[in-house]
């Protein structure tokens, strides 16, 4: 429906795209060359040929799925979908905001996928094509089955409860036996199929546990539900007074609510490695011995091949540079702020960005052995290790289940032997014990607190990804920070006063033509509307930019290249502006600290928490930052594996570590640490690896999260205490044979509500 309307705009759209673009393969170059009001940040653009990911179905429709970055609001959806739909032949374009995916469908042959992708990239949204069959959808089939089980249980619980209330008031009034039995039969008809359907998640899990001869919380749950249903059916057939259908189905409903909340929280963190692999450049340009160029998929690249990496492209595999000089930006990989020069003989790593000039690279190791692949492997290892953490709820379950079973069995035996009761009646009483002890409030105790706590943190701009993150955060005694992008903002800012407005405007006009971080910092500090035109601009890798204005040669770059003496250089990063060999301005840069970094470190220390700094940057820069923040323990020039090693060392020493980091090089350590946080500006991988993500330019979310974690763990413990208190009152009654369906329903609902209300206190807690 949407597809038809905007079609007439197609011509204009194509015009505007066609006018700006240069050559077909270079999406990134194109994005950089547009002179729109919002310059596209080239570093985040991942160049990939979408052709390889187009799937053509039997009905002649072509499908393409892409990850969209920088997606924020309703306007983004409208802009992207509108732009794609404007192309002729496009049948549908649909963005999924939750998963940040764009699905495009067009009639095969009528639209060019490269054009479609380029049009969206030009709007400022970097795209990465992916194969949807490799990545599970956001709402998994398990999610769906839990939701429908919950819906069925909810429907049945409401209706059975309606009938049960009538029966209970009938006990006091004048309800005849016939009516009561009729109501019991109707309850049975509603709840038995519902129990069979909605109880499956618990039955299956209990069965699996028993198969491995262990007990989990689902064993007493399943036993109670099955026994309660069977016994109630028996009572109904006999025309008896007490049927527990309402208890059985309400129990399932409450438990499913808890289970679903828990599951949702866990599902978010799952696809770490898959998303990471999507980051890799998806094709490499191989140069054969005869000089012929061809595009090859990464996994088909062998050791010893020569590949071409164009400016603006990510390096597809590790290798040695053999031809060409360029600047390589490795910030994502190593955390270094400044690009490195890649001359012939230099090592280049997969995932780094080639900034200035094309280079040829001889691959050294096969694609599945790159530094990036190494990071993925380290992460997977770390995640396996972390799975060993046993959650508080599971630890409770481990004790709870055997106790409940022994109690029920003892009740049965006790009534038969001591009170000399018939086995049927003794069975009734022990089943009632099982129903009463069913861990309903216990199962809600943790998920409800988690949901309230995550909701509160979300309003503060903190996203809790893994279900047990807050629980783990509560126990930490050490915080390890990364430097670039975590303690600092990861953005160079122009400082110093060795320039004036005129020289800055001139430098800005030159700097605008480069992707080098220092140039970008200068360009960012310059007003947009300068009318200075520079001609014949060229970029000299490792040196700077050169251009001409009114016949005068202008250079913006390193001091020695601009004609100065390199001895005069300051200790921070700097570039100079020279007109005809005469230096007329010097620009100095600083990687700004987050404004409240010092306060946060002080607060952490006053809370009795150790603070450390592990950085991939050089010792001088790291030492200066550590000194200014008062961090005594720091290590510089850390490779990803070194960071992991330090974290493991701390772990061995019995410390529980919170890792805060953002770079791709931090991803393995984020996954290794006891618990981890990332700023929202972090590399995708790190965001997937981290347990908690925070927004904004401040570092204080670390403190906020810690405080909420402590409060919520306290509440969880209170909730457990409440649940046990309820058991302490209701269980003796059940053992004494005084439990009725009414008592079971009241006790179960009230304890569940009490636990939920207690969790809600977290909203008002300071």
């Amino acid at each position, binding site marked *: 429906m949407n597809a038809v309307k905007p079609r007439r705009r197609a011509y204009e759209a194509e015009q505007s795209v066609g006018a700006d673009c240069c050559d077909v393969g270079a999406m990134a170059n194109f994005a950089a060359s*547009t002179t729109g009001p919002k310059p596209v940040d080239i570093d985040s653009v991942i160049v990939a040929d979408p052709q390889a990911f187009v799937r053509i179905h039997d009905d002649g429709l072509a499908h393409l799925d892409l990850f969209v970055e920088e997606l924020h609001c*309703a306007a983004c959806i409208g802009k992207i979908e509108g732009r794609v739909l404007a192309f002729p032949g496009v049948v549908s374009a649909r963005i999924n905001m939750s998963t940040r995916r764009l699905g495009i469908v067009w009639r095969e042959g009528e639209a060019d996928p490269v054009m479609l992708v380029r049009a969206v990239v030009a709007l400022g949204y970097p795209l990465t094509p992916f194969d949807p069959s490799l990545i599970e959808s956001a709402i998994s089939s398990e999610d769906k089955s839990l939701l429908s089980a919950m819906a069925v249980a909810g429907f049945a619980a409401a209706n059975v409860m309606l009938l049960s209330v009538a029966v209970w008031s009938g006990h006091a009034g004048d309800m005849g036996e016939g009516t009561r039995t009729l109501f019991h039969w109707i309850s049975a008809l509603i709840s038995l199929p519902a129990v069979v359907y909605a109880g499956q998640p618990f039955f299956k899990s209990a069965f699996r546990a028993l198969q491995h001869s262990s007990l989990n919380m689902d064993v007493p749950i399943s036993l109670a539900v099955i026994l309660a249903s069977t016994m109630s059916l028996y009572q109904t057939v006999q025309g008896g007074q007490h049927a527990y259908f309402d208890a059985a189905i309400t129990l399932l409903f409450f438990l499913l609510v808890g289970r679903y909340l828990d599951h949702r929280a866990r599902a978010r963190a799952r696809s770490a490695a898959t998303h990471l692999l999507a980051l890799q450049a998806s094709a490499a340009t191989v140069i054969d011995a005869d000089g012929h160029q061809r595009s090859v998929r990464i996994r088909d690249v062998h050791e010893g091949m020569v590949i071409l990496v164009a400016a603006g492209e990510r390096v597809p595999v590790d290798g040695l540079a053999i031809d060409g000089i360029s600047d390589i930006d490795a910030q994502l990989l190593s955390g270094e702020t400044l690009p490195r020069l890649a001359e012939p003989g230099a090592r280049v790593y997969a995932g780094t960005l080639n900034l200035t000039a094309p280079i040829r690279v001889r691959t050294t190791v096969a694609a599945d052995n790159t530094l990036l692949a190494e990071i993925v492997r380290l992460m997977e290892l770390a995640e396996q290790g972390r799975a060993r953490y046993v959650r508080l709820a599971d630890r409770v379950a481990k004790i709870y289940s055997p106790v409940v079973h022994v109690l029920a069995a003892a009740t049965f035996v006790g009534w038969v032997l001591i009170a000399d009761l018939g086995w049927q009646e003794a069975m009734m009483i022990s089943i009632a014990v099982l129903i009463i002890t069913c861990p309903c409030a216990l199962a809600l105790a943790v998920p409800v607190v988690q949901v309230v706590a995550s909701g509160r943190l979300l309003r503060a701009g903190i996203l809790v990804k893994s279900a047990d993150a807050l629980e783990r955060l509560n126990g930490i005694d050490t915080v390890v920070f990364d430097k670039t992008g975590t303690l600092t903002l990861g953005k160079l800012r122009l400082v110093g006063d060795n320039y004036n407005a005129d020289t800055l405007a001139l430098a800005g006009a030159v700097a605008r033509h480069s992707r080098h971080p220092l140039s970008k910092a200068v360009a960012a500090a310059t007003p947009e509307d300068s009318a200075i035109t520079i001609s014949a601009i060229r970029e000299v890798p490792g040196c700077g930019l050169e251009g001409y204005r009114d016949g005068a040669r202008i250079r913006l770059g390193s001091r020695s290249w601009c004609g100065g003496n390199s001895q005069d250089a300051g200790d921070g990063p700097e570039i100079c502006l020279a007109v005809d060999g005469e230096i007329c301005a010097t620009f100095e840069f600083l990687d700004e600290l987050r404004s409240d970094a010092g306060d946060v470190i002080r607060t952490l220390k006053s809370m009795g928490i150790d603070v450390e700094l592990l950085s991939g940057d050089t010792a001088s820069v790291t030492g200066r930052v550590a000194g200014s923040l008062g961090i005594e323990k720091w290590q510089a020039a850390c490779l990803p594996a070194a960071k992991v090693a330090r974290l493991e060392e701390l772990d061995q020493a019995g410390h529980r570590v919170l890792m805060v980091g953002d770079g791709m090089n931090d991803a393995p350590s984020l996954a290794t640490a006891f618990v981890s946080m990332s700023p929202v500006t972090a590399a995708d991988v790190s965001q997937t690896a981290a347990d908690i993500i925070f927004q904004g330019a401040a570092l204080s979310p670390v403190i906020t999260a810690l405080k909420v974690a402590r409060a919520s763990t306290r509440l969880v413990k209170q909730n457990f205490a409440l649940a046990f208190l309820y058991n302490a009152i209701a269980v003796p009654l059940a053992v004494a044979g005084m439990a009725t369906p009414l008592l079971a329903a009241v006790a179960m609902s009230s304890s569940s509500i009490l636990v939920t209300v207690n969790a809600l206190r977290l909203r008002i807690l300071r």
Partner: protein
Amino acid sequence: MDVIAYLIPIALLMGLLGLVAFIWALRSGQWEDLDGAAMRVLHDDDETTAPTDGSDRT
């Protein structure tokens, strides 16, 4: 008491209707993108949503 012969089936039917509606919504993928649905309601489905000049209007 005859009235319960109508009331119970009516109550059950209404509950069942809600259940069927929920499961239909689940099956038809309405739970796939909750964030997007919340956003989409904000933009009018008209010409202004898709700028033809490629400029950023946010």
